[in-house]
């Protein structure tokens, strides 16, 4: 029995050695040179091979899926870092885009105003307890030939005028300051008045003085500089009428104006020097001359 078992084991072992040998022979041989035995081996093993290949593929897929899942964590980390970097880049580009837009508007304003204008950047702000800007400083001063009284405009409208100048910087008196006075005209009606700042610390607000009761001003009307007084050029947007108080007595009506410029977000402005003001005043005078005959025509 022991002898038989030994012989059986030996036979099976030889078979285990012979089977792969002949399978290998059949698989590696040139198809043109295969004999009947090779073809029989190929046929016999094809079924097993098919099942084994499917199993191997399935296991391989499962493992790949696992490896994929393992790598997903690493990918997440990498992608998170990438997202953070791209977000930062996006914010930077957005800021640059906004700056670009502001500068473009400023350039257009400069071309529109013409003459000698000086671009300047806001380098300092005084803020009220209610976080309202009460005073700004610009990076232009005496050395840039900036003088007190020169108008300062932003892309949205009139900011104020230079109050004091120093070597490399200057102080600006905002149109909402209590001591500011600008001669304005209501664009829709042509009514004139004097815009004075209220100096309120919790909001940006001005009032128009000396606006006749009979002037039909409406909320939402735009106010521009009139050009009179020769301090500010004409036709610079100053603000919008936000409230009107008409009383039954007196000559004037009380009109509140919200300035066109948001002083909290002001970064770049133009300082209108003497040349630009002179040119602007000349243009305003020409416009007035052109319009005069048309008014008389009817």
């Amino acid at each position, binding site marked *: 029995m022991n002898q038989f078992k030994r012989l059986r084991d*030996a036979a099976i072992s030889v078979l285990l050695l012979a*089977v*792969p040998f002949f399978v290998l022979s059949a*698989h590696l041989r040139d198809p043109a040179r295969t004999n009947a035995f090779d073809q029989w081996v190929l046929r016999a093993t094809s079924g097993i091979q098919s099942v*084994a290949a499917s199993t191997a593929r399935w296991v391989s897929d499962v493992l790949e899926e696992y490896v994929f899942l393992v790598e997903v964590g690493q990918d997440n980390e990498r992608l998170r870092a990438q997202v953070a970097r791209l977000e930062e880049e996006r914010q930077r580009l957005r800021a640059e885009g906004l700056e670009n837009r502001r500068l473009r508007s400023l350039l257009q304003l400069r071309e529109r105003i013409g003459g000698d204008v000086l671009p300047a950047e806001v380098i300092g702000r005084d803020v009220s307890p209610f976080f309202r800007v009460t005073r700004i400083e610009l990076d232009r001063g005496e050395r840039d030939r900036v003088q007190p009284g020169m108008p300062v405009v932003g892309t949205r409208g009139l900011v104020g005028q230079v109050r004091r100048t120093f070597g490399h910087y200057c102080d600006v008196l905002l149109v909402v300051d209590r001591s500011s006075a600008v001669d304005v005209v209501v664009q829709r009606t042509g009514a004139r008045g004097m815009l004075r700042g209220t100096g309120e610390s919790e909001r940006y607000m001005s009032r128009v003085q000396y606006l006749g009761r009979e002037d039909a001003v409406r909320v939402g009307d735009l106010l521009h500089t009139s050009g009179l007084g020769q301090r500010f050029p004409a036709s610079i947007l100053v603000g919008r009428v936000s409230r009107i108080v008409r009383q039954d007595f007196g000559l004037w009506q009380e009109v509140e104006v919200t300035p066109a410029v948001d002083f909290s977000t002001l970064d770049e402005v133009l300082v209108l020097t003497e040349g630009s003001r002179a040119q602007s005043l000349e243009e305003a005078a020409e416009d007035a001359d052109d319009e005069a005959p048309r008014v008389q025509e009817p």
Partner: protein
Amino acid sequence: MLLRNLAFLTLGFVLLVVQAAVASHVPLHPFTPNLLLPIVLYLGMQHESQMLRGAMISFLLGYLVDEFCGSPIGLQTFVLVATFMVAWGAGIRLWMRGLVFQLGLVFAVAMVAGGTILALRAIFSPPEAFPLSMPAESLAGEAVGLLVADAEAHPPLVGNVLGIALTLVASSLATALSAPLVFAMARRIDALRTRRRDAEGSPAP
């Protein structure tokens, strides 16, 4: 016994998976170990186990390699079964000789196994399937090309021969260096079996 056989098959499978995972991150070539060769050697050295079971496990491990690694069906199967037979027939007690002997033996067996693979491909493969211009990775292909191609039309290149030799040596070296770890795992499987047998045989407290 069946559990032991399954444990060795599982070990072989896990080692293949680990090697594939490592290879996907770290380029191993030419130091590519054959991690299943030490298992087969271990089985061949265990004379208390039956020859037939060892041969069967070697057969299945070889088939596993052929199936998963894309080598021609039967190539690794034949080589691993043959390695087992030789190891079993030689009757060497691996554990008596120390680490250096183990490393040397595995290195020698890996070299012979690599040479056998080259020889088998040279015998069975048509020469045109293994052009001399094949990349260095196709070790067997280049060797066959050198052995059977028309020497006048395709003069053998010294660089190819050197590359094949270096790859063979590097691969065998990697197999030898990884062998102690594989042996330790295989010993652990046997130790578990022995402990279980002892526990079953011991009287209840």
